[in-house]
């Protein structure tokens, strides 16, 4: 095999190797464990960047770095991986964000702080699951990676979380599992109705499954329902979102960052990679409903944010709203909309990941997550952290020039002109409602800044010398994200140039 064929396997499995090495190490060796985690996730990042550099951007429609070998012959599942312009940004986001989480955790560990070994091993295991999801081109392989994230994330929340951590962990676990059972049913249904153009048998291969008829539109719609349940719970879309505030709120900082930054994207990616191209007719039938749920998610998420008193829960609900924009973009079934969705995913990963880092740092210092307890006056007490918070919060509300803007505004524009055959009037009203959502988003974010950062600091905090400003580990972990927020805002083509080729290929199915 050539280097290109090995590349994706290296990105995906190096963290797993790291997790194995850590599992075999004595648990008192904290420094060494941290170092191994740093090396493993760093190596994955390096190979991820090599993939980015070697990627042929003129051919972003075509899957590159393909590897396709035998795996489970008896069911026709193959070890088939590859990335196109849609998967590549998400893959790079995954390895980058995980690496930053590992850097952050070098110095700042959630309680219980003595369980270093398990913590890093689980993060690396999680990374393998996430990276594998974005690179699989075989439904069984995809499913394996998709589910692989559950157990590590369960333990990260349940062991290192706060407040009702066990309840939140099991809720996250059961919700996702419930959805994925239906997803698996959908996969199997497609498998049994498929005809492999090469062998004549059934196939799980995503590329060969494209253009199959699967026995009629009614059947396709049913299969789509199964996939929809699996993906929509993961995104999450209203009304399947109730696991999210609990899980995000109670997870440790790094857990929240990875949950919001990457795990949510797996759901939206599932729609783009599997549901849309494999079941285009059903996608058209379902698009108005998905768009409707997306708009409800936007408005509902924003309204819930206005009512939150807990900073992490507020950011969690804001994720519901932002992912609503992503899903609205996807539901238009246009190149614009899907481009905006992928951009929105990357931007949300960077911005909300950063917000959760900040919320975690505040919790670390103030030992409370109540907005009215920490604030007012964070800017006064912690000028640097306060300033960074204001910057990121403003990026999150979608200020032009920062990363949050492009994904949302283009998704709304795409809703003005949805794909042919979709109800135009309906999608235009979605656009109006989504626009109202952006105003609400600006409202709760500005209000948050006001309550938290502005004003005069409380006496009990002002006198507390243990509350310190930005620490070196935080500088290292955060600066790439801050640069990313600015860079993506100023030069959005950095993403659009990668995605556009692949997205137009997909959107052609719906014109």
């Amino acid at each position, binding site marked *: 095999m050539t280097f290109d064929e090995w590349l994706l396997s290296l990105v995906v499995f190096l963290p797993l190797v790291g997790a194995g090495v850590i599992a075999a190490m004595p648990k008192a060796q904290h420094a060494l464990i941290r170092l191994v985690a740093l090396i493993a996730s760093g190596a994955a990042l390096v190979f991820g960047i090599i993939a980015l550099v070697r990627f042929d951007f003129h051919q972003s429609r075509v899957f590159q770095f393909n590897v396709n070998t035998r795996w489970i012959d008896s069911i026709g599942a193959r070890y088939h991986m590859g990335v196109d312009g849609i998967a590549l940004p998400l893959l790079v986001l995954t390895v980058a964000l995980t690496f930053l989480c590992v850097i952050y955790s070098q110095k700042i560990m959630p309680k219980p702080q003595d369980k270093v070994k398990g913590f890093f091993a689980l993060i690396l295991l999680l990374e393998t699951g996430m990276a594998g999801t974005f690179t699989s081109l075989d439904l069984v392989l995809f499913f394996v990676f998709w589910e692989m994230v559950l157990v590590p994330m369960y333990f990260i929340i349940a062991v290192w979380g706060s407040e009702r951590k066990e309840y939140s962990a*099991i809720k996250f676990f059961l919700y996702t599992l419930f959805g994925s059972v239906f997803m698996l049913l959908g996969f199997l249904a497609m498998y049994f109705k498929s005809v492999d153009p090469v062998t004549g048998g059934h196939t799980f291969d995503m590329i060969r499954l494209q253009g199959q008829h699967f026995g009629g539109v009614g059947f396709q719609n049913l299969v789509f329902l199964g996939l929809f349940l699996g993906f929509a719970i993961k995104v999450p879309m209203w009304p399947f979102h109730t696991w999210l505030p609990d899980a995000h709120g109670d997870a440790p900082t790094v857990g929240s960052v990875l949950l919001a930054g990457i795990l949510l994207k797996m759901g939206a990616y599932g729609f783009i990679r599997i549901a849309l191209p494999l079941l285009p007719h059903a996608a058209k039938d379902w698009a108005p409903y998905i768009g409707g749920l997306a708009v409800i998610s936007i408005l509902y998420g924003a309204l819930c944010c206005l009512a939150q008193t807990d900073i992490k829960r507020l950011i969690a609900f804001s994720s519901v709203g932002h992912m609503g924009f992503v899903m609205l973009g996807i539901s238009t079934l246009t190149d614009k909309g899907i481009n905006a969705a992928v951009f929105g995913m990357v931007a949300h990963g960077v911005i909300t990941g950063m917000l959760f880092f900040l919320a975690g740092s505040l919790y670390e210092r103030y030992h409370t997550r109540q907005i009215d307890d920490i604030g007012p006056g964070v800017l006064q007490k912690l000028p640097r952290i306060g300033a960074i918070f204001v910057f990121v919060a403003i990026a999150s509300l979608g200020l032009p020039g920062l990363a949050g803007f492009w994904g949302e505004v283009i998704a709304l524009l795409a809703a003005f002109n949805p794909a042919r055959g979709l109800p135009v009037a309906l999608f235009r009203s979605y656009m109006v409602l989504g626009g109202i959502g952006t105003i609400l988003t600006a409202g709760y974010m500005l209000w948050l800044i006001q309550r938290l950062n502005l004003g005069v600091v409380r006496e009990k905090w002002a006198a507390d010398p243990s509350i310190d400003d930005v620490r070196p580990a935080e500088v290292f972990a955060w600066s790439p994200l801050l640069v990313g927020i600015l860079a993506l805002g100023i030069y959005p083509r950095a993403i659009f140039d990668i995605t556009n080729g692949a997205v137009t290929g997909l959107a052609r199915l719906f014109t």
Partner: protein
Amino acid sequence: MIAQTAFSLSSVDVHAILPEIIITAAIIAVLVVDLFLPDRAKSLNAVISMAGVGGAAIALMSLIGSGTHRTFGGMFVLDNYAMLFKFLFLAVAAMLIFMSVNYLNEVVRNIQGEFYFLLLTALLGMLVMPSSRDLIALFIALETVTVPGFIIAGFKKRDNSSNEAAVKFFLFGVLASAVMLFGMALIYGVTKSTNLYEIARVLSTKQYPMPIHHADSVVFASILLIIVGFGFKVSAVPFHFWAPDTYEGSPVPVAAFLSVASKAAGFAGLFQICFVAFGSHSSVWAPGFAILAALTMTVGNVIALQQKNIVRLLAYSSIAQAGYILIPLAVVANKSVSIQKEAFAAALTYILIYSFMQLGAFAVVIAVSRRHPDNLIADYEGLSAREPGLAFAMLFFLLSLAGMIPTAGFWAKFFVFRSAIGAGTLWLAAVMVVNTLIGLYYYLSIGAKMYLREPRERGPIQVPYALATAIVLMVIIIVAVTVYPDFFNHFSPRSTLLAF
């Protein structure tokens, strides 16, 4: 047909029965040597037993690729199917010996020689079982597996619950044998043969050797009775009542033996009866298995939810797992050859994977029970802080039993699930999904207790080397199947039992 099955000793294919001969020699060796061993050296019997198992495995390996052997007038057949099960049984027996050595030395010190004698005897029955293509041989094999079980279940002589375990197991076991024997007698009455292939020929052509009234009803009754008999052996609901009490009362290695070895042997026999002798009547037995499977899964899982004792929990979980194994049998009625083959392979693969994950869980339970003999689930709280390796192995086995992706147990369930969907029996697939989710809850809750609770008692649980070896070996096997699911699935389609 009886006349044709006559044989002379010189015509016996000794090579084909070499594994059984070696085990018999080991049985006699244990029996004799044990007489001369002082109490403190009794565990030497384990070495002899292990040597016997190893020798039998080598003998079996020498038979690989030598084609199908038939001997004793066709009563004893050594084909790929038999080979697969024999390897499984030898591996399971080796693991059981590893798991038992220290436990026996501590709990039933002076009578452990007898334990190895009985274990090897049961192993002999298990080895004969998948080769028996004759009702009489099958019955004898089954009894050779079961009867030693009655005795070792009551091995903690002064323990009331152990006595109760033995008596319950004995009564149910004998009842099951009687019912099965009645069914076998009926089918002999109709077909005038005890040879499975001959029975199959007569039943499919309906050319009965003598005129008989209501032949179909008699065949129906016979199938029903034989299935009920096997239902007891594999503890399918509603014939499961003996299992939890027996498992709980027996010494823990015996519970492991009953839930893995004797159950797998029961399935080996069941497959031969169903697919060979009654292959033409799958429309009769398959719906029966559908009901059994649905009941077994559901009852096993629901009752497992409320267990406080880890051995009882594993007992109910093993009942539920038997339900999953029955699913492929339930979906094959009047289906195409490819679907039948797929279902058969799914069931075999499930048994192989199940054997190792269940045995692994029991190995951990044995390790913990040396320190906490009450076997309460509460004893597992905070295990990760006390014995990280042990807790990790247990978590791994539990996740696998739960069918969590991507462990070996998931692939077992996936193959079964796929065969149910492929055959179009969607309701059973749905029941299976619901049950898997229920199962996940109680398996995971043990995992959560091990990792999230504070330990009630401090201090490590020392794991003896033999036991640790068994645990590590089984973790390796499960990891191998996790990464490469075809590892086991590979063998099953090659099985020559299905002669389509």
